[in-house]
Every structure is written in C-alpha cells, then in structure tokens.
C-alpha cells in the first residue's frame, strides 16, 4: 500500500508515493539526497535529524512522511542564502560551536526556528529551546554562545 503525498521541500513542490512506515528523514535522505539531515537514535531523542516543518523544529525520524502531507519542510541545505552563510551558521563557525559536526545541522535548524520566532531570546530561552538536541563534543557552551551572539545582532534574517 502506498499513500500519495505532496510536500514542499526547501521551496520546491514534490509529490511522492510513500509507504505507511516511511519516515520523513528517510524520504529526505534517500529520495532527495538531502543528507545534511543526519540520523542517529531514530527515537526522537537526540535531535540530529531536526528539520523545520512549517517553521517549527521537529525530529524527522519519528515523523512519518505521510503525516507531513501538505507541509513545507526546510532542511539545513536551505539555511544558507545566496551563497552566504546565515548569521546562525556563521556564528557556529566563528564560535567553534561545531566540532565533529554530526549534531550541527540539527542545532542550526532548532536555533534558526527559535530566532525566527523570537529574535532576542534570553540565555534561558536559548537553553530551553536547545534542550532536545544532544551534543557529545562541545558541552553546549559554545553552541549557546553562538546563538546568543546572533540574538544580540537581532535575528536570523
């Protein structure tokens, strides 16, 4: 059995016939080659697979592709604009907030969604927003500092 869905991914409309068990992360990685979205736990805990679904960060490993029918998905590949890093991406680079980098796309999506919603979050609000993303390398400090530096400049756009 397959289900017909339509999905806007990074601004482009697609139609897919998906199986009822196909997850969004698998669809993005396998069918569209959008491998910037990494996969680790597959249980919605680590946040490595975070994408924006209609502007909100979600774990794409526990979201079925069929549940995303009609939605607009943004992945890490669409965060940069016109050949320039977004302020969040540039802040991660400058602050050393990416070490092994496996968690990085998930954090950048989560942080970008936060800043779109709330351009000047407090440190506590940043930490609260990032609590669903795990990182083993950085100890979070530089990630929070990177997001704070963008918050001081005034948002992600």
């Amino acid at each position, binding site marked *: 059995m397959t289900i017909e869905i339509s999905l806007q991914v990074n601004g482009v409309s697609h139609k897919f016939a998906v199986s009822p068990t196909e997850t969004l992360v698998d669809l993005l*990685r396998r069918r569209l*080659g*959008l*491998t*910037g*979205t*990494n*996969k*680790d*736990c*597959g*249980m919605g*805990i*680590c946040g*490595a697979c975070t994408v924006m679904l209609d502007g909100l960060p979600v774990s794409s490993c526990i979201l079925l592709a069929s549940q995303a029918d009609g939605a607009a998905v943004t*992945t*890490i*590949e669409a*965060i*940069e604009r016109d*050949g*320039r*890093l977004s302020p969040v*991406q*540039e802040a*991660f*680079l*400058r*602050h*050393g907030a*990416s*070490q*092994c*980098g*496996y*968690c*990085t*796309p998930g954090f*950048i999506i989560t942080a970008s969604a936060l800043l779109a919603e709330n351009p000047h979050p407090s*440190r506590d609000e940043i*930490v*609260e927003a*990032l*609590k*669903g*993303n*795990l*990182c*083993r*390398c*950085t*100890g*979070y*400090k*530089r*990630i*929070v*500092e990177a997001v704070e530096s963008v918050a001081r400049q005034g948002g992600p756009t």
Partner: protein
Amino acid sequence: MTTIWKEPDGEKFALGSIEEQAHWQKEYQRILRAVREEADATRPAERIGRDSHTVGMALPRNDALYKVRGKARYAANIPMEGALFCRFARSTEAHARIRGIDISEAKAMPGVRAILTADDIPADQLLIGTLTDDTPVLAKDHVRYSGEPIVAIAAETEEAAEAACLAVEIDYEPLPMILTPEEALAPGAVQLDPDGNVIGDLKLENGDIEAGLRAADVVVEGSFVTEPVDHCFLEPPSGLAFVDPDGVLTVMVCTQYPHYHHKQIARVAGLPMEKVRVVQTVVGGAFGGKMDNTVECAIALLVLKTGRPVRMLYTREEVFTATTKRHAMKIRQKIGATKDGRFTALDVEYLADGGAYRSYSLVVGGRCVIHTGMPYRFPNSRVHYVATFTNYPPSGAMRSFGVVKVAFALESLIDELAGRLGMSPFEIRRINGLVDGDKTSTGQVIHDVGLLKTLEAIEPIYQERRKALAAQPDDGLKRGLGIACLGYGIGYSGIRNPSTARMRVTADGVVTACCGTPDIGTGSDMSLAQIAAQSSGVGLHRVRVVSGDSTKTDDSGPTSASRTTYFSGNAAYICGQDFKRQFEEAVARARGVTAAQVRIEDDRIVIGNERLSFEDACRLISAEIEDICGYGKFDPEIEASILTFKGNPYPTYVYATHLVEVAVDAELGRVDVLRCWAAHDAGTIVNPTGAEGQVDGGVAMGIGQALWEKVERRDGVILNPHYRDYLMAGAKDVPLEIKSIFIQNHDRTGPFGAKGLAEVSLIPIPAAIASALHDAVGIRPKRLPMSTEYLLGLINERARAAAPAAKAAAGDGHD
C-alpha cells in the same frame, strides 16, 4: 570484480561545482580574515597580520564551514549508486555454543543478495583484534556476548536486510555465564577464552610499600566501584565499501585509525595490502570508541562476494549493545602520609571487567598502572591490575583509558587525607605535587612540569568562591567546592609510536601536508595546518592537510591518547622545516645565488633586498617544483619494560587542576554542577578555540560520568540501549560557566612548545565533584555514577550516624 566509482581525491566534503568550491573557499577566507583582524587587536605588534604565524591564534576550523552547511561526508552521507545495505544477525545469548545456523529462509527473502557466515572465511583469517587477534569477524561456534555478530546479510534496502536477519535461525546451546571478574576468577569457573579468563595481570612496584606504610602517621583507605560507560558519539559506526576503477577494494569508514583497518581488512579478505585502501570519512565523534572493528571487515567481504558497493550504519541500539564500553572497575586503595602531609605509601588494586574479548584492556591496564599516583611523589608504591573476561560486550578504549577512575579514587582519598590532617586541599597537593626533575613511579625524570602553576591559578578563584558561598543567602541548597588534579602521559604507553608528515607544493602555490593521524572531530587538521604553516613560513591559507587515508599518508598510529598535536604536530613541524629548506634551495638555484641568501618569510620569498610572492617563486622554480617533498618523522625514544613498567613510558606529560562548584538538594539527592574552572598545562595552545572546545566537552562528559551515565546490565543483557534510559547530559544539565585557563608552559620537546589536551579535561571532573559533595554535605562518595539514590543513601546514613551522637551530646554535655 566490477569497477564502480572513485571517491574524489581524499575529499571529505561534498563540495559542489568548481565555481561553488571557489566561492565557498573565498567565504571561509573572508570569515577567517575577519576573525584574525579581531584577534590582531590583542596580539603583539610583530605578529599582526603575519599570515604564517598563527600558532596560538583562536581560529575557526575550515571543516566547520562544510559542517554548518550540512555538507560533511559522514560515511552514511556519501552517495553511491546501487549500494547494498548490510546488517548483522546478532547473538541473543550471552554465552553459548552455536549448534547450527539456518539461513535458508533468509536467503529466499526479497532483496537479499548475499549472506556471510564464519564458514565463508578461512579459519586463519577469521580472527582480528587490536593487540591480539582474538575476535572473530563473525562468531563461528561460540558466542561470548549478547549482540555478537554471527551472520552478515547484504540486501537491496536496509529494511530487507533487517527482515532477513530476523529470519535467520540460530540453534544455541546455552553455557554458564560469567558476569563479573570475581566469577571469572573463581575456582572451577567456565573458561571463556582458550587462554583462560584473565586478560591481563599487571604489577608495578616502587620502593618498599610495607616500610612506607610503617612510616605513615595517617593511613586512609577506600574501595571504589565504577560502572561501564558508553562513548555516545552521535554518529553510529558507519562505512561504505566498493571497488574503485583501479581495482582497489576501498573502504570508507568513520575511524580513529584507518591504517589499522587497512591491515586487518587485507588479512581477512586475503588480499595484498596494495589492493585495499581505507579512507577515513568525516568522523561524528569517537572518544576511543572508533578504534576497533565494527562494520569494516563485513562490508569489505560482502563487496568481494557481491561485486557491488555495500554500506552499513549501526542503529543506536547496536551502538549500545555491541560496541566497546569503558571498563567497569573496582579499586581498593590505601594512602599513607606523615603528620606534616608528606605521602609515604600508595597501595592500589584494580579489578576490571574486560568483557568478551581483549580489545584495549591491556592498554587501559598499562595506563592505569603507570598513572597510579600521578601527579604526585610517592616514595613507595605497589599497584596491581587484573582484567578478566566476562560475557558482556568487550571493554575498550575510552577518553583517558581508565585514568578518570584512577583519579577518582586517588583524588578522593587525598581530599580525605587533607581533612584528617587539617590541611587545605591545595597545601597537601603542593607538598606532594611533581616538579621539574622529579621521578615518577616508573623511574622517569620529568621536565616542564606545570602542575603547581595550575594549582596556583585555581587557588585564588577557590578562595574567592569560598567567600561568595559564605555570603550566599540560604535557599535550602547546600553548596560546595572541590578540586582535583591530574598528570597524563602523551602517546602510547612505553612503546614507540612515530608520526610522519609529507609536504609538497603545486605550481600554482597550494601546499599539501599529508599527516597520518586523522581528524576525528577535534579540529586536529586545523592545528596541524597552523604548525606546518608556521614552521615552513608559508601562509596558512595555502596549506591543505590530508589525513587519514591509507594510500596518501603513512601509518602514523591512531588519533588517540591525546597524541596528535604532539606527535603529528612535531612531524609537521620537522616536515615544515625540511620543506622550507628544499624550497629555498630551489629558489637559490634558479636565481644563481647561495641558499643562505634566500628565505621564506611570512608567505613571501626574500632574496637579498628583493621580495617575491610565493606564487611567483613557484613559477620561478616550476621546472623542479615537483621534486620538493618535505618529510618529517617524529619518533621520540620511549622505553618501558612491559613486565615492570620501569623506564620512560611517555615523552611528556600534561597537568591540570580543576575546580567545581556544586549545589546539592539534600532532600532529593539532586546535584547541580554550577561552575567549573579548568586550569591546564598543555604546553603552548595551538588553537585556543579548538582547545577550549575540547575542555568544555570534556567537562560535560565528566559531569555525565560522575552523576548519571551507566550502562545497566543484568544476566548478560544491556537493559538501557537508548538515550531515553542512558542519561547523557543535555544543554540544561551542564554549566555554561566553564572557564578554561591555559598555563602556557612551553614544552621543550613539543611543536612550538605544545603538548596535547583532548582526553585530559575529563579526568579530574568526577573526583572534583565527589570532593565538592563532601564539602557541601559531608559525604564521601565512592561509586560512579554518583546516582541520586546512592547519594541520598549516603546523606541519610550520615544523618543517622550523626543523630545519636547529637542526642548524646545534648543529653550529657560531652562531645
């Protein structure tokens, strides 16, 4: 064998078209320039704007550009037409004979292309290992832990491979299990290995322990217990294998040591080494957990069997149940000291759970033995380490190779001793701390010892926080401070482990430095580029480091034991000097002047009064530019007996003092680590951004290991193979106030005085937290993790012990 595809020259990133690559390189250089201009504001005048002099500058890593764009090529992200997917059918028994394996149903399932069992591998090629070849690629007739791979299946999709694995029927004859080292050592215990149940029995003696204990005015002792821990690198083991157009079996894999896999795969596949290439992909964290074979041999063999590319990615559950762990360890320890605080004796026994196969148990043991007592003078010491097999996943290497537990026990008892003697934790460490010219327990005379400087850096902060805590309004929480120190040897223990580097230059002025040790996420490629640039005098922007490729780099050992900055950094330094000399000589010949009249200086070539750009100089010597090949090998003399450990096991040591501040809710047993100060003598710091990042991450990992992290095991089964039940620190659980202090203690043997750092920032943390808990609520924890229940137990026990005394005191007025 069909020819499939060739990975573009050592590239670890999906770079896009040539125009895109050029564009993004420019973007990176723009950001780098901006960061350097900011940094220049605080640099000594003679260094400002000098493009080759970047050692010591906080610079953003070049690989992060691709990581923040989602373009990093982790193995699972490498596109490959027609790749099959591999999965293991794993043992469901912790200890059993395999009576039979029935693959007939699996074979008939849709999408299945090949099934591999131990019978497909010649018996003399079946066993692999890091130090000893004792681990079967696939279990043959005996399984030693639940999760051990038995059958490897390659299918068209991940789902088909998974389904086929479930259809494999394995007939087991269960055997008695060994679940603890004590059981392993019990008389009559079932023997897990052909050589018995003991993996290693190591001893180090120094002076006269009995005399040392007799000379002591005070003796403190304790038994410590630590649980197994998982590395929790975020990227599960992952690889992709295929045959390249030259007919070379190419395995791209996330690893700390590609050259090791290169040898193993060649042996297991029965191929000459030149027909195998191992390329390290971008590694999504390792921490010692990517040094053993996981996916490598199976996917290589399946490529040979199917003629198709094969990929594999472990699930998180497989990571928890079937990769190596940090050893569970029991430690019994006794310290003697005189009234005035001088240590007289140290007596320690370790009993380690090595799991089902040897892995790095002996390396962990050697390091624990040598580091027992570090970084202090103990005139008399006796250390005994025993590791045994059990029916759990193999225990292997993990950040610090066990020294975190050595420090936990030793520093906790030193804290207790200081209390008994009425001394400050600083004073007792100052009296006994190693200084230049001291001898370690192996008899090594050490130099450039910055331990006391790290204590000095921390002490005023401690005093200030002490005052602040005294003035803290009561909020129902108990606060405390704790310190702990460390000394840590850089590189392999007691055996030579050289690193090499080679540098060449293209006619258009790009300098490539090939270094053997791979970057595993720490940013070592960036540090090596900085060292190579500064040593040779060329600009950092033109240096490209190629690392971790078995055909492009020499075997320079693994990226482990905090050795890359020091060993490969020294190789890059020597290589840079050699490159500079050759380049200058070539320019001199082209100009008909003597070599002494030419020098590379800050990315320009100075010939007498004339200055050439580096590019122009490359054009000038284009006829012989290909002959230039800088070479550097760093191979310090290291020698220690493998029986007594006497000798010089490491070329240099790193030192540190950490301070933590905790808040304890004594009713709930809840601990919050509020702040941490970490002073390190890691020599010169090559890239402070990278170094501080290592410290932050090490501290967070240390807190997790101190308070929460534990692989729960029962009857041969791991009960918590998910992040949901294995508690790794999140952003809300660790302090953002982590202050790194680097004592820039120039090491005379390091590249520009650098030593190394990656592992050490974790080591003192559990001990410092334990001492802070003693400071806060008077308990002396002796278990890791210090779980809430455990701490509550200690707090209540202490309250009960205090209650009758208090009652008695109130009753009769005596104390």
